């Protein structure tokens, strides 16, 4: 089985060792800093309390949710052509969430205290409390669902129920995550009741990028090594879905930017004018990471191309990471009541320690992924996939 999966071989071991090594090294580096000087090793401040580690967590958490939603296409909604990525998506959703939580754990002041104070105090008014609840539920359902798939229980009643529950958990978790920002009326850049929709869309975009990239990685970026249904999917339905989701993302960013620039509220328009659009990094990530990939994916002749798909997935991967970063930081850059102590926009660039956490999370993801490819069969799909997918492939 999985003859084409190169990660079953020595390359997988290599990836596992290297990424585990990087993750451990990054963890050690960050840990040393945190032990020595605490969060002084971050460039965050009381004026900018949430920095790149939070953005990293947000990115990972949403990518996980996106993957959960993608998996729900076949598992909940019966879009059987997406079965070939269901199991890998569930697995990726699980490990990417674990990796994000690891980053968050290093960001919090007292991570272990959280484990007992949250259940003991039951502050149900706090979205942060529900984030804990929903993501734990999400994690558990992902695990359970994955276990069902491992047991080849694709279509049993329980499996379907778990799939539905898992999908709901994903919606609640990421929707609630959006509201953590979207409910903050004192941070007008974030304050938006439709924030969950934006998060859902971009979550799916980053999830697609992840699953496309990692699936190709498993097959050595060689589509012909893939099983036929998977090949068919990559040639047909997936790139279309990808294009549609990217289009939605572009649309959402555009309407946010237009309303943001249009308003007189300096806490919004200055973020767009003086922070986001003034930043070459933001410009690059927006155009190269989101808009250009969308355009490419619109072109039928290009979107089916394996190389293009890999490139696009990587670009979107990076573009959405930047989007998360600028989203988190952008909500805080306009000084809140700071008077002359903050003369201009609050300056923030992540410190080495903060980068170490991002690298740690990413390397952890790669390591867990390599382990998954090696020890589990992530390409598994129901044996009775309809030939329809094959038909699409030839279409």
């Amino acid at each position: 089985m999985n003859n084409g999966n190169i990660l079953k071989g020595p390359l997988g071991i290599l990836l596992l060792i290297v990424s585990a090594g990087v993750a451990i090294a990054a963890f050690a580096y960050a840990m040393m800093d945190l032990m020595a000087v605490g969060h002084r090793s971050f460039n965050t401040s009381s004026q900018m309390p949430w920095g790149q580690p939070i953005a990293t967590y947000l990115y990972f958490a949403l990518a996980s949710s996106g993957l959960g939603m993608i998996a729900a296409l076949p598992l909940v909604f019966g879009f059987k052509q997406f079965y070939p990525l269901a199991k890998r998506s569930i697995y990726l959703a699980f490990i990417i969430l674990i990796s994000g939580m690891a980053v968050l754990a290093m960001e919090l002041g007292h991570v272990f205290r959280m484990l007992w104070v949250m259940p003991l105090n039951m502050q149900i008014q706090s979205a942060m409390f529900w984030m804990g609840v929903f993501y734990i539920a999400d994690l558990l359902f992902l695990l359970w669902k994955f276990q069902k798939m491992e047991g080849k229980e694709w279509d049993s009643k329980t499996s379907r129920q778990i799939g539905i529950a898992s999908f709901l958990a994903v919606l609640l978790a990421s929707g609630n995550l959006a509201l953590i920002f979207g409910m903050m009326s004192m941070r007008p850049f974030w304050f938006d009741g439709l924030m969950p929709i934006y998060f859902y869309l971009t979550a799916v975009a980053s999830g697609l990028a992840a699953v496309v990239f990692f699936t190709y990685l498993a097959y050595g970026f060689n589509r012909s090594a893939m099983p036929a249904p998977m090949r068919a999917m990559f040639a047909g339905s997936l790139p279309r879905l990808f294009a549609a989701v990217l289009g939605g993302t572009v649309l959402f960013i555009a309407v946010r930017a237009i309303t943001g620039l249009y308003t007189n509220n300096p806490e919004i328009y200055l973020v767009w004018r003086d922070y986001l659009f003034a930043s070459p990094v933001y410009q690059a990530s927006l155009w190269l990471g989101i808009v250009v990939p969308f355009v490419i994916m619109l072109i039928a002749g290009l979107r089916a191309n394996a190389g293009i798909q890999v490139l696009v997935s990587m670009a979107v991967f990076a573009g959405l990471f930047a989007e998360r970063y600028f989203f988190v930081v952008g909500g805080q850059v306009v000084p809140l009541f700071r008077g002359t102590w903050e003369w201009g926009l609050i300056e923030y660039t992540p410190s080495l320690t903060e980068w170490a956490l991002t690298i740690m999370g990413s390397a952890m993801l790669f390591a867990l992924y390599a382990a998954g490819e090696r020890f589990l069969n992530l390409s598994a799909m129901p044996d009775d996939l309809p030939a329809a997918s094959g038909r699409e492939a030839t279409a």
Partner: protein
Amino acid sequence: MTKWGMVIDLDKCTGCQACTTACAMENNTLPGENWQDVLFYHEGTYPTAKLTWLPRPCMQCENPSCVTVCPTRATYKDMDAGGIVFVDWNKCIGCKYCMIACPYGVRFYADEQPVVEPDVRDVFPGEGQLWAPPYQSPESDARRGIGIQPKGVVSKCTFCYHKVSQAPEGVADLDEDNPETKEYVPACVRTCPPKARYFGDLDNPESEVNRLIADQRGVRLRDHTGNRPQVYYLGSGADVPAYNPPSDS
């Protein structure tokens, strides 16, 4: 029930920052961790420029947005303590969500880079607390965020609860000019040289703070937030100008 409130007369305030340093020393905050801050704003150009300032403590809101976002109830409004909003350092997990949710920017995560180097935390290192200044106050109450904080928690103005809580029961005003109450007055109020600050019970119709609010038309800062501060401002200057980048001025 007592509801502690503060009144700040901006027509008398001279922007000297005595409140800031009195608070810093009373509460052993780090340099630049100004629980009580004075914010300066510029508008206009020579020869008709306008310079204003706004002293800003925690507003101890009636409807505090920081409290509901806290996932652990570490931040809480204590109605038995005159409605002061505290941080329980034994419960705080350092997620900093309350700092995001506070519209007044008066919460601090002291476990951050120093404003001034060398870092006083290295010069006066502490065990189990962020630092140990040689002048450390004998007061501490981790459940209310009083004393020197440990690492990884959020801190804020407590209206000097360690002083205020000792006040005689039912007193209408804590006036630093009254020898009977001097020691129970929050540090920033006690020291204010032009006597621009008043502290008393907003639930007591006889209190001086209520009289000032009534006679001089006290206003709350950014009342549109709905947080309903227990701090009122008199005089001109509470209409804080919106943020304006230096490049636009």
